[in-house]
Structures are given as C-alpha cells and as structure tokens.
C-alpha cells in the first residue's frame, strides 16, 4: 500500500495551498486555496485531476482547512469601513489596503473553497478549526441583549467622533455582522470574507462572477468545526485531529497588521497509516502566542510548508531589548514616543512587552492606546485565551495580561499635554488618521521618538521616514520638519528553517513532502533534511503526484501460549560475571505484545492450512513440527 500525494497547489510556489492525499484508499484534501497573483484559470487548483469526471463526492472523503479565520481582519475591516463613511479622502486607500490583506493571507488557504464546493460540486464534509466553544457560550446568555452589549463595546469605547456619525442603517449592519461572529464563529466569518472577496473581484476588478453570495452561504453549511486536540472520526477508518500550530502570517509586510490566530496542524489517520499536514506554523513562541505543539506520532508522511526554508532567524530578544532601551531613554529624557501600529496583533505584543517593562522599572510615564479597536481586540484575546501563550494563560485567572496595568485610554488632550508619554496610534504606516495627526505635531521636536514596529509600504509616511529625511512633504501645502529620532523594530514571526528541521526531527516521520515554498529554497531544505536526518524528502511541483509506501500491519492470530508469554517479561537472568552481563544487555530482548515487533528468538510465524498467519511461541513450534512430521 502507498500514500499518494497529489499536489494541486503550492507545489514549488507560494499560494493556493491545495494538497490531495490518498491514504489507504481515503482521499483528503488539505486546504483549498486560490492564487492571488493570477486572474486566469490558474487561480484555482486544477480540480479535474482529482476526478476527471467531476464526481468529487466519491473521489474525496473530506476537505480540511488548516486556517481559522482571523478575527482581527474583521475588525480591521470595520475600522476602515467606518472611516470610509466619514472622511472621504481616506476611503480608497484604506479600502484597498484592507482587501490586500484578505486576499493574500487567507484566501491562499481557502479562496477556492466556495468555487470547489458550489461550482464544481463537492458535497462532502469540510473541517475547519474554530474559536473555542466558550466564545459562543460567553455570548449566549445575553442572546437577547447582545446587540446592545456589542454596541457598547463598539461605540462608546471607540472614543472618537468617527463612530458617532455612522448612519443608522450602517450601524445596524455593523451590529448584525458582529452578532454573527459571536453566535456562529466559523460560519459567520468565512462567508463574510468570501463575500468581500467576491465583491472585490466583481465590483472593483470588474471580473466575471465565479460564485455568488448564495454559494458562499451554501458552502458554509458544509463546514464542520474542529477544536484543538479534538479527535474527529470522519468515517470508520478516517480519523483527524487538530494541533495548535503557533501563529504566523504569510507575508512579511502583512505581519504588522495581521496575525492569524491559531492556525492548526492536522493529523490524519487511516487504518495504520498516519500523516500530518502542517499548514503554516511557528516554532518560536511569542510574547502573546505560544509555539506549535504536537504529540510525538508514528508518522508515515509529513507535509510541511517551507516558506522560509533557508532562513535562520536570530533571537528577537536583542531587538526587543534595543526597542525598550530606546523607549526608556526617550521617556526618561522627557520625550514623547509615538508607536504607529495597527490595533491588533503586533500592538498586543508591544503592549505586553512595554507593560512588563513599566511594571518592572516602576515607570510612571503614561502609555496611551489610541484606537478603541485595540481595546476590543483585547476583549477578543480574553476570549481566545486557549490560543495564546503560556504567559498569558498563567496570568489569566488573576489578571488578564491584556488588561494592561499601565495602559490608559487615549484622549485628545494628551496630544498637547507636556511631559513624556508613549502613544500607540493607528494606522501603522502613518498613512493617515491619528498617527499622522500626532506625527505632524510631534515630529519637529528632537526628543520625540517614532518607533516603527514593522514594514511600511512605499508611498506612506512611514516608508519615507525610514530614510530619515529632514523634511517630509505630505502634500504641496504641508511640510513637516522631521527632527525626531526614528527607531525601526525589525520583525519576522514566521517559522524558519530551524523550526522546520526541529519539527521534522521531533516527529521523525518516514517521509517528508515540502510544499508552499520557492523551489530553490525547497531544494536546499530537501538536501538538508535528507543528509542530516536521513529521511526521504520530496518537493513535488503542482499537479505532480508523489507516492510513498505506507505502513500496513498484517493481521495474525496469536496462540494462547504466545499471549501468555507476552504478558510476562521474558528475559532470563543469569548469575554471571560482569562481562557476560554486558554482552547479555546487548542481546537481551523481550517480546513486545504488539505483533509487528517480532522477536525471532522467541516467536515464529506459522502459516497453517487455512492460509492464516499465526504467531506462536517457540515452545509450540516444536510441538507443531512434531505433529507435521507425524502427518507426513
């Protein structure tokens, strides 16, 4: 028997993850992504390779999507949505930006799902990780008043004038969507995203509609939620299990905006064959998210991503240290620190870092959070406690790590208050909004520090700032003197080649297949895996099939005598000299009652007349042989 892996997407490339594995007769599709870089038929995986006839229901047992939809995204979306309605000049930019995120980070893994299920016609089960169920429960008691409670989260804490000017019909839409999230996390989030995507494709790009809203809704009905470490019996033979995979994003420049909470690794077992599909994962823990966790399994196959197959990342502690030093130095000199950041993810991490530091150093300088969104993000982190790191879990019962002690709400008066302070303001690239406003005011002072926590897109103030110009021209009428200091915080949270190697070493599978990476990197990683661990490794291109042998256990009957002996340890003891002892320890073996471990010294496999295998003890062999002799 063999495990056949058909790579439909992400083979020697990045994007449209889609792998179909035929394992002991069961076919599982892992991820169903679409390629965002192209707009023709190559955007979707070539599903016809699964079944030329288009009968996918019989050809596939199930689809497993390794990504949980990111809540952060949704909120970002609101943020911009609101802005759109208020200040017209900002609409376009923010909007584009937002969709860029969605496309690249998520649809990569599930963009083609609706297409596949609805257009191509797959009716089998789809598995996804979801938010923990407690999330739902958290809201459920308030089912009737949740609309109000959500409003109170959303509106009063927003703290700025933008929210108040939302029109009523928009407000109700906002609330409706939020309510969806609370009540049906998986089903609510995915269609929203897909819907957005559809709109973008259709409305903005003017492309032909490939699926409609109804399709999305239909598709979502097929999705079955999987919790972490929950084992699901898909059918009699197939069993799947999700493991926590740490956090990551796909593209470096996106990380400052988004972090995908809790992607999962999936373990699938059919009969005696086992395999793991990792999706994306991270082996290095973060301040607010832990490292991937998985059991040691007896794997035949491991399919792992290899985006950073050749990179080895250094400790980020040193960078954190520099950042803290810079901030501390600035505030102790009475300066103001501006940290332009998006409300979530990265901001959380920096916030934890600084809050700890403030606590330790007994600093009294205020830290302000500009966006109400950040506060909401904290509410969500509180709910998502299972997905966070040990630190946060440790402190959860007493003080939630996201209840920052030293962080207070931003008010406009802060801008002109003299004295040192630290301000987290969005958006992250100083492209507009509060961070730009603050930047305009503070930049001309020498004791101000602007800490850029990540990559800035070209064309944004943040990008210009990195080259430390004396002046920045916003538009022909506005010029800003830049005398402030600039500190750039390099950031890269994706798993590196060391992480991949460590995971492979820990799992020690019999075969490894690399997907989701650039070809040269895959090749070098493949060589490394092969030479260092002696594990055969493959890097198939799209639409190629790799076949690896699978473990099959032969069923055999065991005689009673054998079973009896198996229950006892059967090594014998001699009173002998130490030298003999040492020899004995090397040769000494006892039988393990699992049949596949056959100790030739003690066990014989006999094929009897009925052509059935039988395991007997060597004592019995003599008897049987004797019988045979008499028969003959």
């Amino acid at each position: 028997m063999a495990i056949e892996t058909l790579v439909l997407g992400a083979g020697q490339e990045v994007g449209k993850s889609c792998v179909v594995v035929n394992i002991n007769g069961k076919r599982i599709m892992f991820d169903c992504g679409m390629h965002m870089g192209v707009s023709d038929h190559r955007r979707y995986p070539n599903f016809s390779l699964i079944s030329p006839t288009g009968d996918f229901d019989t050809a596939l047992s199930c689809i497993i999507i390794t990504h949980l939809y990111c809540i952060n995204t949704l909120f970002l979306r609101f943020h911009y949505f609101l802005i759109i309605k208020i200040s017209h000049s900002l609409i376009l930019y923010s909007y584009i930006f937002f969709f860029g995120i969605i496309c690249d980070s998520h649809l990569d893994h599930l963009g083609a799902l609706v297409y596949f299920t609805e257009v191509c016609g797959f009716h089998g089960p789809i598995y996804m990780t979801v938010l923990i169920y407690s999330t739902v429960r958290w809201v459920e008691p308030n089912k009737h008043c949740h609309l109000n409670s959500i409003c109170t989260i959303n509106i009063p804490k927003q703290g700025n004038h933008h929210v108040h000017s939302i029109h009523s019909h928009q407000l109700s839409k906002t609330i409706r969507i939020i309510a969806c999230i609370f009540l049906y996390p998986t089903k609510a989030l995915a269609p929203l995203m897909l819907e957005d995507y559809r709109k973008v494709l259709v409305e903005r790009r003017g492309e032909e509609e490939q699926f409609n809203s109804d399709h999305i809704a239909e598709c979502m009905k097929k999705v079955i939620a999987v919790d972490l470490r929950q084992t699901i019996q898909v059918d009699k033979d197939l069993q799947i299990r999700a493991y926590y995979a740490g956090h990551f994003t796909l593209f470096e420049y996106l990380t400052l905006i988004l972090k995908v909470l809790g992607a999962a690794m999936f373990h699938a077992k059919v009969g005696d064959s086992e395999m793991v599909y990792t999706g994306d994962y991270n082996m290095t823990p973060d301040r607010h998210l832990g490292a991937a966790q998985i059991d040691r399994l007896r794997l035949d196959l491991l399919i792992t991503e290899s985006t950073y197959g050749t990179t080895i990342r250094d400790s980020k502690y040193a960078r954190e240290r520099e950042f803290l030093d810079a901030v501390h130095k600035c505030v102790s000199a009475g300066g103001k620190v501006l940290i332009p950041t998006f409300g979530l993810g990265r901001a959380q991490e920096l916030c934890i870092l600084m809050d700890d530091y403030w606590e330790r150093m007994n600093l009294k300088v205020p830290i302000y959070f500009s966006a109400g969104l950040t506060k909401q993000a904290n509410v969500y982190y509180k709910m998502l406690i299972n997905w966070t790191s040990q630190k946060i879990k440790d402190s959860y019962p007493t003080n939630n790590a996201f209840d920052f002690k030293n962080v207070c709400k931003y008010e406009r008066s802060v801008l002109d208050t003299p004295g040192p302070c630290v301000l987290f303001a969005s958006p992250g690239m100083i492209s507009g909004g509060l961070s730009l406003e603050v930047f305009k005011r503070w930049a001309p002072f020498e004791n101000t520090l602007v800490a850029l926590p990540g990559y800035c897109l070209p064309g944004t103030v943040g990008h210009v700032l990195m080259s430390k110009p004396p002046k920045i021209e916003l538009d022909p009428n506005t010029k800003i003197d830049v005398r402030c200091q600039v500190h750039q915080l390099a950031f890269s949270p994706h798993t590196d080649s060391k992480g991949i190697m460590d995971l492979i070493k820990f799992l020690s599978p019999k075969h490894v297949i690399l997907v989701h990476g650039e070809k040269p990197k895959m090749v070098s990683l493949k060589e490394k895996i092969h030479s260092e661990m002696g594990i055969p490794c493959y890097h198939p291109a799209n639409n190629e099939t790799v076949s690896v042998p699978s473990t099959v256990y032969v069923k055999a009957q065991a005689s009673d005598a054998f079973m009896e002996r198996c229950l006892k340890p059967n090594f014998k003891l001699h009173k002998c000299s130490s030298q003999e002892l040492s020899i004995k320890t090397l040769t000494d073996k006892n039988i393990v009652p699992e049949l596949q471990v056959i100790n030739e010294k003690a066990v014989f496999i006999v094929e009897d007349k009925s052509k059935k295998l039988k395991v007997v003890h060597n004592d019995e062999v003599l008897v049987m042989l004797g019988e045979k002799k008499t028969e003959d």
Partner: protein
Amino acid sequence: KGDYYQYLAKFKCGDERKEAADQSMKTYQNNTPESIQPISMQTFTSMMNEILNPSTPKSTVSSIFKTLIHSLLHSPESHHSQILKLIADLSSHHPSLAQLALDSLQSMLPQLTDPPSQLTIEYLDALVNISERPVEVDDSLFTSICLAASFPVRLWMVRNSGCRVMVRPELLYPVLMGMTKEPYPCLREEALEALVRLGECAVFEEVSLVKGCYERGVQLLSDNEDCVRISAVRVVALWGLMLASFNVDTKTYWSNEVFAMLCSVVRDMNMKVRVEVFNGLGKMEIVSKELLMQSLSKRVLVLDQSPTEQFVLLASNVAGALVHGVEDEFFEVRKSVCQSLRTLTVLSVEFAHAALNLLMDVLNDYKVEVRFQALETMHHMAINHCLELQENYMHKFLDVLEDNSSEVRFSARKIVRLMKLRNHLLFKSTMDVLLKNLDSYPQDEADIFSVLSHLGRNHKQFVDLIANEIADEVEASFEGNREFNSARMAALLVLSISAPFLNADVCPIPPVIFSFAATFLSRICCAFSDVMNRDTLLEYLIQKSSSMVQPEVNISNGEGQNPLAKDDVQNVAGNEMIHSEITINNGEGQLPLSKYNVQNVALEMKPPNDVGQHKRPVHDSVVLTYINYILVKLPNIWPKVQSCSANEVLCSLRHWKEELTSLTFDSSAPADASAFALLYLKIIKLVVEVWDHLVRKTEVVSGTVELEDKLEKLDGRAKELMNRFIGFSAEEEISVLELILLTYTLRLCRSEICSRNFIFKRMTIIYLRTESFLKLRSDVASGFVAELGSLIRESSNGGASCSSLAFDNCLKLFSPKRLMIREGIRHRRAELSIPNNCPDYPLPFAPGLTASIPCDITIHNISSNCRAWVRMCINDGFTQHVYLDLQSFEVSGEVRKISYAVPYYRTPELDSFNLKVCIGLESLFENVTPVQAHGGPKCELVLLCEEKIVYLSRVL
C-alpha cells in the same frame, strides 16, 4: 490465642463482648487454633482508634499487636491488606514494636513469594513502611517479583528498588535494563528512574555496562511517551557523565557526545523534557569550546581552524540549543537554562562572554524567577572571573538595579559588589543609580550602603575624582545650605569613607568627611559589617578625621642621640663582654638530667614566689641546665630537618616549647634565660616550617601566602631576639647572629621576593657584625657563614646579582651551633599599666585639647642610653609617639620605674575613643631605612610589652 480473644473482648460490647470473653477463655483452655473468626470491620476501626490514641496503655497496644500478627496467619487473604496497614500504623506510632513487627513480617514473607502476587507486594510495602532503613530483598525474591505476570507488582518493585528496597547492583542493573523494553510506558519510566538512582549510588567498573545503559537512554529519548523521555534525559545526562569520566583521554570526546545528545532533544514539545535537558546540561563538566559557542548560534558555525570531525557531526544538533531555551514559552525552561549557564560559563571564557549577551536579554524577562536566576548566574560568573560587563551592557544592567522585585535588586547588587568598572563615567552612573535607588526603595538602604562601600573600596581612583564634589555637597547640606537628604548624605559618606579604607596611602578625601560620617555611625556601620564592627569603624573614622590636625604636635625627640654613636657604644659593650667571657666547657656528660627529672624539678618550682630568695640559685642552676639540655638537642635534630621530616621535628619542638612555658618565674635571671630559649625555639620552629616549604617546592604554589606570612613572622622574631636580649656571651652572640643570617638567607632564597636589595643590605650589616665577632674571638667561621661571606663579597653592589640558587647552597651548609646559655642573659622588657582605666571608667578628654594618660611604667634591663618611646595609636591608623626620658626613671638595680602622664595631642571630635598604648625601644641594629620622616623614633621600634587599650571619653 487467649490474648486474641481477650483483646476482642475489650472491644466488643454487651453480649458480643461477653461471648468473646467466653471464647477467649475457651481458647485458653482448648488451645485450638482453627476456631478463630475473621476480624470484623468494626473491630478494625476500634483497633485503629486505640492505636492512634496516645494514651492507650502499652499492654493493650502489645495485645493488639499480637492479635494482628496472629490474625495475619489465620485470617483469609482478603483481610491481609487491612491488617498490614494496621501493623504499619501501629509500628509508626509505637516505635518500640517496630522491630518486632519487622521480624515477624519478614518471617512470613517467604511463604508468600511463590508465585508473587499483590499480597507479596503488600507485605513488602508494609515492611518498607515499618523499617526506617531500606529493606534488603534476596535475589530470588526480587527476580521472581520482577518477572511476575502482574503489572502492578512489577511496577511496585521497580519503583522501590534502589531506594526503599535494596538489591545488589549487579542484579538490579540487568533487570532494569530489561525493564526499559517493557511495553508499559510507566514501567519504562520507572525503570529509567531506578537506573538514575542506581547510577547515583553504585559504582560500575565495567565501561561496557555504563555504555550500554547510556545507549539505552539515548534510544528512549525518542520514545513516544513524554514521561519516558523525561526519565531518559536524566539517564543520558547521568550515565553519559559516568561514561565520560571513565577515561581521561576520551573524556572530552564523550562529554561532547553527551552534550550534543542532550541538545538534540532541546526542541522537545514537552516542557518538562526541556527543563530536564537543561538541568542535565548544567551538570556537564567539560565541553569543547566550539560546541559551546555553537549552542549559542542557530546557524552552524564556520570555524576559523578546521573543525574536528566530531564537531562537524554534532554541530547541527547543538545549534542554538541555549537560544531556544532562552526563547522558550515556559518560564521553567528559561529558568533552567539560566541555571545551566552557571556551570557552562565556567568552562570557557569566550563562551562566557557570548552567553552574557544572552543573559542580558533574559534580564528583560517578565518572570521574576527568570530574571533572578539570570542574575544569580551572572553573580556566579563574576565570582569565577568570567563576567565582563561592557559599557553597552552596563546600561541595561543598571536598569535591573531599579527592578521592582526586591530579590532581583539584591541579586543585581551582589554583582555590583564584585564589579570592576572600567571608567569614571560608568562609575558615576552606577553611583547615581544606587543613589536613586535609595529614594525609590528606602527599605533597601542597608544593602545599598554596603554595596556603596564595596564600590568605594574597589574603585578608589574614581572616588578620588569625585571626592571634592561629594565633600562640597555634604558640607553644604550639613550647614543647611541645601536640602538635607539624610539617606543620600549617608550614602555619599559611605562611598567616600570606604575609598581610603584598607589603602594606607594618603587620599584626597577631606578629613571632615570622616567626622561627618561619624555622626551617621549607627546607620552606616552595617555597610562595613563584613570587615569591621561598629567600634572599629568608629575608631577608624576618628583616626581618619583626626588627621585633619596636622601632625606637627610630635614630641621633641629629646637630645637626639646619634644612633651610630649608640651602635658604637653597643659594640664596645659587646667587646667588653667578650673579654669577660667565661668559657664553659660543657660536654654531653654534664647533662645527666633526664627529662623526667627536669620535669620534677619544674614541678617543684611551680610556686616560685613562695620559695624564699635563698633557694633561688639552686633552682636557677637547675633551670639553666634544663634549658641548656633542650638547646643542646637542637643540633641533633637538624639532619632531620634537612631530610624533610619536618613534622617530626616540629613535634618535638612543640613539646619542648610546652615544657619551657610551664616554667614560670618572676623577674629573675632564669626567667630571662627561659624567655630567650623560648624565643630561640620559636625561631627555630619557624625556620623549620619555612625550610619545609622551600625544600618541597611543589607545595609552594598552594602555600605562598602562608609562607609569606611565616617569613614575616620570622623576621619579627629575629629582630626581637636581637633587640630584647642583652648580656650574651660571644659564643651565644655568634649563634644568635648566625640564626639571624639564616632567616635572611631563607628570605633571599625565594626568588620572587620583592625587596631583595633591602634585605641583602641588612644581611650584609649582620654579616659584618658576625665577622667582627669572629675575628675578636679568632674563631673560624662556620661553613655557612664563610660561604655567605664570600657571596656577599662577590656581589658588593647589592644582592640583586646573586641568584637565589647561591643562597640555597648556603642554606645546605647551615647547621645550628650547640648553644649553651649562661645566667648573663638579660631580657629587656617593660610593664605598663594605666591605673583606674577600664571601659566603664574611661579617662576624660576634651576634643582638640591634649589628654593626659597616666601610665605606670616599669622597665627591666634597659640602660639609660637606650631610646624608649611610648607608642599610642588609634586602631590601625594614625600613631603618635612620646619619648621616654630614661634618666628621669627611678632606678633600682636593673629595674626602672616611673609614673608618667603621657600626653595625647590629637583628641578627636568624638564622644569616646580607644587608644592602644605600648612601650617600644628603638632598634639600633638595622637602621637601614628611617622609619618615619618627621619626629618620632628614628629607627624601628621593638615593642617591649603587650599593647594596652586605654579608654577615653569626652568631658561633658
């Protein structure tokens, strides 16, 4: 059985009780063992109560015990576990019965072993619980249990083997090795744990055994069960180290292997495994530098020189192990990493520097435990001299001093104490941080002061730089010109007064600082508690602050006799004595006194004062004879010294010394003689010790300080011998001079000695003197002296040209002369008493004014042309000398007496202080260097008496 029913009767009530009593009676009569009923649940409970009740009479307890033992034999097996539990409880509450219980259980055990079952284990468990020591189990029982079909039985045995159950290691080892292949994970785990225990206590001589176990551990590192992997890591760490220590040649190789093996599991998904790995790494004794460096870098290092084959193989396993540990999500792991760095940093200096970078990052950790551990590690590094904080680290490190966890702050300060700062700026910022700390954490005051005092002591040069600033600030605030911040003042004072501490040379700290510091005495004394107590600190402060009054007050040194002239006089005196020399012809035969006799005599003489004066001559002669008897023996033991049996010699010397000290006299000639002999012996003893050191050069390394100390002592004693005794015969004089020459030679023998020329000069003087003596007596110089003479003549321009080897040769020629002493020897000594002075009745003084110290002085055997001084000093600091005019003394024979009010000029601004007073005589022998430039004695003082402490207190 009668007991049994009797007992039951006690507990059953009513009818039941009666019935039981009847039955008891019956059993007593019939003695039928079969008729016993099983004990009911109720009875168990009541028995339990009785056992736990401390007031239960002993007889009841013992009858309960008998009943239990009895029922154990006769009741069905289902009851046994309860009975056994009761027995165990009983013996823990009544230890007197424990041994009995043990014996009876042990006797029952063999019946139960075949086949081993749960019951056997229960028996063994009870046995183990009762016995305080591990129970020994014989081999057959052990093997039968270990091979038993029942899983819990095996588990129990493995779990307890090696700790509570003793089995021969030779047997235990193969059984455990077999057990590591068990299908049950918990059995594998327990087997590995037992192997760890075994490895800790047993010694294996066979390499293959150890290797086998290590390899088994390595295999199980990839076990599917977390618990097995944890134990496997421990096995690998322990047995791997054992394996490495087998052979010195391959030690590095195997240690590296083990290190890499442990590092390879550092990314295990289980937190406990990772913790265990780092614990294991912390035990490494030796690891090659390359691998250590590799563990700090995730990339495989490219080495400058061609890497060893082993490194190439292991590098990828080791890569970044420690970095991963530090980045770990769980604080337990991070803490464990810091702990392991503690030992690892000691292994290589280069690694220590690199690891410091890592540790500095850890200082940002959010967990107090981790930060604390990191600092402890750095402290450990500092102790081992591998901590070098560069400037960029210093900044971060100083932040830690402000940490809000007191543990962390204390730990950080511990490091500051040991630090040597490179430049002034760092020192200043450290100081500032500490002062700031004082404001924010007033509860740490004592510790901060202590740190400041260390800082000051270690960085005198930097303190000097800011001394004036501090002085200005202190003065300003004391005078009220500035806001008075007492904590800050105290801290600044601590810093400044600690700088000149232990540094004798003059420093720019204004003396007024010291007097300010004195006002904070109680607050700051704890800062110096490691070196001095409160009183000594006070004295130190007084002494330092008093030096603000210029030392002009030195007493006029009288007539200022020319020391050279004095020397001449002395020489003349010596010559005269030579003329009046009476040769004593004393052979061996004249010393028939056995030691026994002498001791008898000594005993008789014990109450010497009661014995009338007329008896003295007799005793004198006896004592003299005895002293001579001892002295005569000296040359005989010399060969032993040369043949390196110093211990023997020292032993007999000590013995003689004891005998000599047992002879006590009042002022009389024999006393002087014995004092001389005692000193002589002391010198010989020191010579022998030093000799021993020099000859056995191997030990010199370890005992350099000790040797230096001894040489110093020897020097002092030699001076004493020369200066405090007069009335030598020529022969005695020569012996003494030779001895002194010997001490110098010994000093010069040490090639590393610093003031060589100076010593050589002094030696030349002594030599010339010896020579003149010899000439006068027209004696032939001994081989030693002659050789020394030729050496000195050869290198007339100073001793530097002479190699220590030449002196070594001289030493070989030395042998002590036979020395006979006569009554003529006089001991110069003085008695000093200050009447009416004790801590409770101090003498009065007014600060700034001269205080008078009334002294009653008696001096013996000192002629009026000697120059005597009273020396007064405040604790190990400033000294004032007052000249004693011997002419003004009241003379009676050789004894002079005077009652003299000694003036003390530099009285400090304090409520009270102590003076150490004593009498000294100018040494006229070796005036090579003038001791003090202004006033005071011209030559070194030889102290004639013990120092007396004078207590003074301010007049109110």
